[in-house]
């Protein structure tokens, strides 16, 4: 597979904490990891965005960094709703849990969810981005 640079076109972060969103975008930009970056402070808003652009694959993120503990709709509820969306999710999206939870139940629950590809503990850094890239490539080559 040809090395692409930056490796991703569109990356999305869903997190209620503004510092963590800022950090995520800063790390992604600094590492030149994605061409564009989308931020949502609420899972419902992100879901709306995905529904609206369901027929425009170029506007669907390849990677979604998803927090678990959020007011309103939490990460797991988002996953449930996202799983109902058509193939878009399966085809272009790679959902990565990015959370401060060290809870084993959260980890197990994420591991058992087929649309979750990785589980990361905060904070995000370059090493973790690299890990996600590997996971994504593996996923892509299998499909």
């Amino acid at each position, binding site marked *: 597979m040809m090395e692409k640079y930056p490796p991703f076109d569109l990356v999305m972060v869903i997190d209620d*904490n503004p*510092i*963590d969103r800022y*950090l995520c975008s*800063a*790390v992604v930009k*600094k590492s030149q990891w994605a061409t564009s970056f989308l931020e949502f402070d609420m899972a419902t808003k992100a879901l709306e965005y995905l529904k609206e652009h369901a027929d425009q694959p170029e506007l669907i993120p390849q990677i979604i960094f998803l927090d678990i*503990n959020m007011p309103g709709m939490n990460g797991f509820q988002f996953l449930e709703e996202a799983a109902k969306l058509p193939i878009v999710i399966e085809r272009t999206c790679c959902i990565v849990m990015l959370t*401060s*939870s*060290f*809870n*084993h139940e959260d980890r197990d629950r994420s591991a058992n969810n087929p649309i979750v590809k990785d589980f990361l*503990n*905060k*904070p*995000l*850094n*370059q*090493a973790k981005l690299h890990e996600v890239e590997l996971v994504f490539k593996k996923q892509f080559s299998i499909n």
Partner: protein
Amino acid sequence: MELALAETAIQSQHVNDFGNQIKNKSDKLVNYFILSYFLIGLFFATFYDTWSIALYVGLPLISSYYVSKMALPNSNFYQYLLSVVLGLFMAQFIFQLHGMFEMHFFAFVGAAVLITYQNWKLQIPIAIVVGVHHALFAYLQFSGIKSVYFTQLPYMDIFTFVVHFILACSIFFLCGLWAYDFKKYSERHIDQTFELGKLQQNEEQNKKLRKTNEELDKFAYSVSHDLRAPLLSMQGLIEFTEMETEEELTKVHMVMLKESVSKLDRFVSDILDYSRNSRLKVRSEPIDFKKLVQSSIEQLAYMNGGKFVDISMDVECGCSFFSDQHRLMVVLNNLISNAIRYKNNADPNPKVKVSVSIPQPCDNALIVVEDNGIGISSENQAKIFDMFYRVSEQSAGSGLGLYIVKETLDVLNGSIQIDSVIGRGTKFILTIPNNNAE
């Protein structure tokens, strides 16, 4: 122990209460009977003009019963007296009706009434009275003494008397047996009711306890998130700034900041580990040691100094192993992070080796965490498992790590041994029982 005594006391209180209930109910019943007996005596007086007997025998009988009951209300004496009184009434009636055979049935009525007290011993006085009465009066009548009435039969042979006697005895025996059975039944019933009550109480307590545990767990979960989330944001920003900045001094400050933050974070997670261990039930789930050790090593590779240490693993597990995954993880994390933290900076190749084996017959897992770090002096080895014990002020930890390891192993019924030489390294040897259900 005290609780058990208190429960026994409560239960005997219940038995007492029940006994009193029976007594009161029976006393009321007897009031009617004994009054009727007296009135029947008066009625029988009309046949052969035996008014004096009806009054001079009947009145003392009835009053002796009430006097003894009032004089000794807490004793059972009046009940035994009642038994005698009922026997004597029978004798009175037989006499009043000049030996009419059917009057003998009053002995049986008396015996039946006494069952209500649920005390088989009450049958004895009435049986004795009846026996003595029969023997005496039969003897007197047939020896020809006038005005003694026992039977209207012209004669009574010894065979009839014996049959009469045996039947009477069987009736008293049966009534006694019933009284005894009733009592046993009542007692068992009380016991059962009491046990049932106790079970319900226990169940309620358990429910409450479970609820409290669940709430505490939820609390611990949300505290862990709420306390750690801002710490992790800080850590992320610090790492980012460290990477971004060109200022040498800022870089140094960032390293210091990061150390403080991770120390605080470790403290929070240690306390959470401790509270989870002491509170949550031990789980039994299949353990994949390879995965477990690997994920522990991966988690710790990011910690301060982790990347300078060569961490290797050697896992050989021939049989399936069951234990509590989260607790094992806590133990491994603590031991491995200690090994990294206390590496020997003079050594060019700091190393940590984690080996796991399950020797036949698969009863225990043997985990060895070995490092070539600074080591622990023999006088300190005895104290390192104490709560909040830190070897020196330079120790970066909370002083809880090895204490949690020890506590967790206690809960898992495992054990830990230490083998350490200052300057050479430390070796922790853990034995953890296989918790397979078979």
